[in-house]
């Protein structure tokens, strides 16, 4: 039995998948498929890399999961719920259960670190007392408590991404989506972010990372789904980036 065999994780796979893509295709323009007949299941507590070259459809998958766009064909389910059936007023509530970080961090430049994280709670009307308890906890988790009064432009890329991570996690999402989270970072900061994502995953959050970073994918030994021209060409437990080259 392998040392990292996790019975709870294996058992959880018997349950309903957290994310299901069922024959999903997406065409932005008629005849040009961004995704083609994607079938995929991601279970609770999994850490999944989605890799592939530019234009392979990785970001389209993230946009589908955020319900920013709808599939042209097929269905996307999150915790058994068909996203296509969510009404507009339900989408905001749904998105609160998804944390998301982007390559360009997307922090509010006119607010300091604390306010950027608190903002995510303010907009979902969390009581101020809870915000004051929760935000420092998250800032400590990402190692930025001392920088809480700094503004984004006073931070390094790695630090900005950690603020974005804290913001994504502050509402306790069940899924964390990371779209090229290390795309703008040097190797040292990239590893710091990835180890944070791994910690978060160990606490039970399902993590989906879209990346180009071969070194990280190869070293982390997680499930790797490889896309090429909108199709899944491989889906490997403890996979490697090299499959993308096949």
């Amino acid at each position, binding site marked *: 039995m392998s040392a990292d065999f996790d019975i709870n994780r294996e058992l959880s796979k018997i349950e309903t998948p957290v994310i299901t893509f069922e024959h999903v295709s997406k065409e932005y323009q008629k005849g040009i498929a961004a995704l083609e007949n994607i079938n995929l299941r991601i279970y609770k507590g999994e850490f999944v890399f989605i890799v592939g070259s530019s234009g392979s459809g990785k970001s389209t998958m993230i946009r589908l999961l955020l319900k920013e766009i709808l599939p042209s064909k097929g269905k996307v389910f999150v915790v058994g719920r068909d996203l296509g059936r969510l009404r507009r007023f339900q989408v905001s509530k749904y998105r609160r259960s998804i944390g998301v970080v982007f390559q360009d961090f997307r922090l509010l430049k006119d607010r300091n670190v604390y306010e950027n994280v608190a903002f995510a709670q303010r907009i*979902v009307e969390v009581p101020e007392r809870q915000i004051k308890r929760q935000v420092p906890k998250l800032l400590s988790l990402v190692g930025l408590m001392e920088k809480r009064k700094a503004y984004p432009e006073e931070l390094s890329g790695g630090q900005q991404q950690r603020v974005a991570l804290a913001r994504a996690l502050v509402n306790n999402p069940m899924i964390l989506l990371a779209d090229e989270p290390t795309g703008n970072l040097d190797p040292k900061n990239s590893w710091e972010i990835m180890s944070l994502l791994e910690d978060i995953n160990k606490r039970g959050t399902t993590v989906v990372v879209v990346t180009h970073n071969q070194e990280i994918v190869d070293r982390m030994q997680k499930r790797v789904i490889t896309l090429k021209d909108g199709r899944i060409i491989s889906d490997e437990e403890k996979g490697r980036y090299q499959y993308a080259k096949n």
Partner: protein
Amino acid sequence: MRKIRTLLYCFGQGIRSAWRNRMYTLASAGTIMACLFLLGVFYFVIANFNYTVESAETLVGITVFFEEGTTEERILEVKNEISFRTDVADVVYISAGEAWEKYKKDSLNEELAATFGTDNPLADSASLEIHLKDVTKQDALVRYVESFQNVRKVNHSESIAESFAGIKTLLGIVSLGLIAVLVAVAVFLIRTTISTGISVRREEISIMSIIGATDFFIRAPFVVEGMLIGFLGSVLPVGLLYFLYGEVIRTLREQFESVFTALQFLSREEIMGRFVPMALVFSLGIGIIASFITAKRQIRKIELQH
């Protein structure tokens, strides 16, 4: 408590956004000011014209004459029936004796009148004099009165009624046309202001949307901004019109008394009491509706472009 905090947040953001785009805010508020000022001037003219017409209408009468031999009792019966109508201000019975006395006084000299002695050549000229509440209803009333038995003739002035109605319609059309143009300009400028505010906050809106803010939470600050523009746009014209109205009426009365004797003016308190609520509904309404529609459209675009 949470809802109050959210509302306060939205108000704060709306005010911040209006301040950040203060040049556009002022331009939009300025257009509403111009719009409201003109609306006010037209409204004051129309309201005073109506007031004058209403006063004059009570002077414009219909005279009803009866067939020979109609008894006073019958005439009073008709008077009673006409009095019940809602468009009638009052009905006065003028007996044959009163009619002859009036005629003698208005049209005959004393010598000539004396030749008639105690005879009354208008013995069958008892009549009813009807005054209307609204002169435009005159035709209908004439038709109604003519339908009575024993009525011989109904005298009325069509031209006065028609000219009053004509002037009112013309003023109404001109003011509506002008106001429509100004409303369109105001709506256009508010949309520009709100769109600018939205594009400045594009990043923030996109983040808010992705992390689960409700539509209300995202849009409300822009609606507050629109309300603020509307409110700012109403304060100055209302104040200015309040001051100017009193001055203009006083000047007209003092300097042109002979020319404007026929005109009746509403008091400043009376006209402002009607105009202020109208101005607020108008300016806040434009601000809220224009900003709501713009925010809805622009924010959807941002969400799709992300």
